[in-house]
């Protein structure tokens, strides 16, 4: 039975079209439609109810060595108040999940995917032996909103004493928003500057309402799941179950930058080192349709009449105004400009390999 978030009534009142996503009832779009919502986030700001996401808190004397063992990035290099993307891998190098690790003064805080929440919690808790550490799933008491877009800082600054102008991307602070104790991370899943907010569940409507009020003069709008998907897609941010999965390793997914081989042992290191040295057989590339058509998740990539790969995500990309896809292809077909076909229903339509990300995130252009 899918579960409503605390903001269900707000979404209904705003005309949100509600769908079941990873066991949660969430708005896929509001009345203006996903393309307009997408542009709103790129040009002004958007507010996302992402309470389906889950969180873990790791504490204890051995929290650092434990996390070094569990995740692919070098947690030892994180400065206080840093938030960093990482992967969690199986011994064979396949991906358990992609996560964000926040190093806070009294804890490590980890944001994990909704669809993987139970699996991740079990995985982390099953590997604590030999470490003086506690792993607690705090999703039930934690609410999560994302405020994203070029106007996000100005909107949030009106509601928090934290000095946001001094807070670089991928930093976090324990502060307040609208008087509510909140972990503010300058992070997101859109390719824009913005914030992810974690605060007590019972304050969900209060915080939502105050941000919506503060954002109104800035053009802030609520944003549904469809635009969340197109925004992250243009910025080449992976989605679990599509670009990444248990049978896909970070090297072939183009996420080798999130794997710190130099830090010492971690789960999956040996397998990943082998992939890195030998080179992956198939890799994630960007495709642009040469013939018109909408490539979608699961469509075969074809070369010389043979299915050689698969589209992981594809769509009409609103910012670029082009029909684009992310797809796994054999490495021989991964060079820029390489021509492949995408099978769309009964036709094979021409496509070519193009540079990614399709949209360079705003915070990387500074």
């Amino acid at each position, binding site marked *: 039975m899918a579960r409503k978030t605390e903001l269900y009534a707000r979404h209904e009142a705003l005309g949100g*079209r509600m769908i079941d996503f990873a066991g949660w009832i969430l708005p*896929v*779009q509001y009345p203006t*439609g*996903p*393309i*307009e919502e997408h542009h709103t986030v790129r040009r002004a700001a958007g507010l996302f109810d992402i309470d389906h996401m889950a969180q873990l808190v790791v504490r204890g004397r051995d929290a650092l060595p434990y996390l070094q063992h569990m995740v692919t990035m070098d947690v030892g290099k994180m400065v206080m108040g840093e938030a960093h993307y990482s992967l969690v891998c199986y011994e064979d190098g396949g991906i358990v999940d992609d996560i964000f690790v926040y190093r806070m003064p009294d804890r490590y805080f980890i944001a994990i995917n909704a669809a993987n929440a139970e699996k991740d919690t079990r995985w982390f808790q099953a590997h604590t032996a030999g470490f003086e550490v506690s792993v607690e799933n705090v999703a039930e008491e934690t609410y999560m909103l994302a405020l994203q877009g070029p106007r996000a800082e100005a909107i949030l600054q009106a509601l928090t004493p934290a000095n946001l102008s001094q807070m670089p991307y991928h930093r976090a602070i324990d502060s307040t928003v609208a008087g509510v104790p909140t972990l503010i991370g300058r992070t997101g899943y859109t390719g824009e500057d913005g914030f992810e907010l974690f605060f007590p569940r019972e304050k969900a409507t209060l915080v939502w309402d105050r941000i919506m009020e503060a954002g109104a003069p800035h053009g802030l709008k609520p944003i549904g799941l*469809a635009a969340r998907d*197109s925004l992250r897609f243009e910025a080449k941010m992976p989605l679990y179950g599509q670009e990444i999965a248990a049978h896909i390793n970070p090297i072939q997914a183009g996420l080798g930058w999130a794997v710190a081989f130099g830090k010492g042992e971690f789960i999956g290191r040996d397998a990943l080192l082998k992939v890195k040295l030998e080179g992956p057989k198939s890799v994630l590339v960007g495709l642009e349709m040469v013939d*018109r*058509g*909408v490539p*979608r998740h699961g469509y075969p990539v074809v070369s010389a009449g043979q299915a050689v790969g698969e589209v992981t995500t594809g*769509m*009409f990309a609103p910012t670029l105004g082009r*029909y684009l896809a992310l797809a796994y292809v054999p490495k021989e077909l991964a060079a820029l400009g390489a021509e492949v076909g995408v099978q769309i*229903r009964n036709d094979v339509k021409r496509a070519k390999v193009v540079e990614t990300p399709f949209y360079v995130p705003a915070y990387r252009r500074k």
Partner: protein
Amino acid sequence: MRVDKASRYTRTHEWVRLEGNEAVTGITDYAQEHLSDIVYVELPAVGEHFDKGQVYGVVESVKAASDCYMPIAGTVTAVNEALADSPSTVNEDPYGAGWFVRLTPDDPAEAEALMDADAYEQFVASSEGEH
């Protein structure tokens, strides 16, 4: 929901309007609203013949691809080429600039057997109630 009084309607949310010796067809306002932002319309070649109820095209929204069914049998005489560059016209003007194909009907009387605007509105209202 907008309806065009001059058109007839199918239970699969296509409209068809007789114009002289030809007929023009597309998807209804209810359909475009339900699909939301339309990003691509795949249309047949001029000269192709379709039976009533046969799939002749595909309309793709942000989230899904949906088949389009021929409301009456006929031979395609023109397709709306403008939709290639501006598929959102279907959202904005489904009964006008957002038309899909023109055809020469095998039997124009087939259109008369379809729902008129009032019947279609009632059909949508009753099927909405089932959800």
